[in-house]
């Protein structure tokens, strides 16, 4: 029960309260670039959600098994070369960023090939966005958030398992989709407005984004209230 509450709160938090775009400012480039039409925004959003889920899965696995201090696979490999005591303290944390970015890039490549070959309709709807998301900060940000809940956590009970990591990956993507689709809806209407010349394009998008961020600030504090209600605590 406590576990389910945790998953639920991580999901709500990632999708609405601490929205990736409007609270953490990651994925701003597509938020401004690909938010002209609702259907394009939806395609981008689903591509990001899809890749984010896969990336978080890969990064959680690599971090837990290989990268974190004393990770089982690294220790096992190192024990062939050095004494078991020396192998037990192996720490590959410094490689995290390099490994993550290459894991994400190759995952995107494989997903693109796979989807193009086996699911042409799906590829048509969001495949064109796939190469764009390799350098999307939202994906790397999700992986880094998962990392911060695995490496350097003092309390063993607070280390994230795969379920929590996936909840963040899926609902982080959902939050991105929500933000970009709302934005696209507003911009479709804005096209009919008479916007002063200096504000046209990115400037007005940012200001609308600011108003959206204000609206999303209304969700702040919902998670602490929900946790109190769901766990029955004071």
């Amino acid at each position: 029960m406590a576990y389910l509450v945790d998953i639920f709160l991580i999901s709500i938090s990632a999708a609405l309260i601490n929205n990736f775009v409007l609270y953490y400012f990651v994925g701003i480039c597509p938020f401004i670039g690909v938010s002209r039409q609702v259907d394009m925004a939806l395609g981008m959003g689903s591509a990001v959600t899809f890749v984010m889920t896969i990336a978080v899965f890969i990064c959680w696995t690599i971090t837990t098994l290989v990268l974190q201090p004393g990770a089982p696979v690294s220790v096992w490999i190192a024990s062939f070369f050095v004494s078991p005591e020396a192998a037990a303290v192996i720490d590959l944390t410094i490689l995290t960023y390099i490994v993550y970015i290459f894991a994400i890039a190759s995952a995107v490549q494989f997903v693109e090939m796979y989807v193009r070959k086996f699911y042409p309709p799906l590829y048509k709807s969001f495949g064109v966005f796939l190469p764009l998301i390799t350098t999307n900060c939202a994906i790397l940000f999700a992986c880094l958030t998962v990392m911060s809940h695995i490496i350097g956590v003092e309390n063993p009970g607070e280390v994230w398992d795969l379920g929590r990591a996936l909840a963040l990956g899926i609902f982080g993507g959902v939050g991105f989709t929500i933000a970009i689709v709302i934005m696209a809806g507003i911009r479709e209407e804005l096209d009919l407005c008479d916007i002063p010349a200096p504000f046209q394009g990115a400037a007005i998008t940012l200001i609308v984004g600011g108003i959206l961020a204000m609206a999303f600030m209304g969700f702040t504090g919902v998670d602490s209230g929900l946790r109190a209600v769901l766990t029955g605590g004071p």
Partner: protein
Amino acid sequence: MAHALKQKIPSPGRWLRDTNLGQAWLVLALAILFGAALAAVQVNLSRRIEANRQNETLSKIPELVWGPARAREIKSGSAAVQIIPGTLQAGSGANPITLNLFKVIHAGQLAGWVIKAGGQGYAEKIDLLIGIDPQVSALTGLFVLDQKETPGLGNKITAPGWRGQFKGRSTGRPLTVAAGLSGSEAAIDAITGATISSRSVTRIVNRVMAAVKDSLEVDTFRPIERRS
């Protein structure tokens, strides 16, 4: 003639450009070079980073146990202060919690405990250090390690005046939060415009106090073995 000959023999650069091995060689060489650079950084800096991380907590502990003035006195005194990090299993059967805590020993005697605890705040997680006296009867101090509450409102929980209210509170009964009721024995004064932040901190403190009230004994305290 010499010019023509020069063009016949491929230069090493050209050879590298034209073969697969040459391309792989470049990426591989860069990887080895960068790997060495990272290893050097890791060897030189990791100890310092780890020390930074621990000092952040350790430097606050004397103040939490003795208060700022006395802590300064003790620091300049001759008797050694020993801080032993450890963990504690607490809480009731269904949901046991592991607490990170520090046992503070001064001149050979137990001077107090400092517990590190976190919980959901208004915006994100709040991390606290809570000082408790040796008999586990009263709080000796509170420090906010980490918070992302609203600037200007919620982040007033870090102000010494507000934190000071927790000092001397009995661990016997849960603390409550009330607005504009300073002077009342059990209630913590809610910060205007940040009732939720005030309540979150109090809730974390209450949870820790409930957990440790019965079980903070020497035999349940397990020191962490630090690798050198």
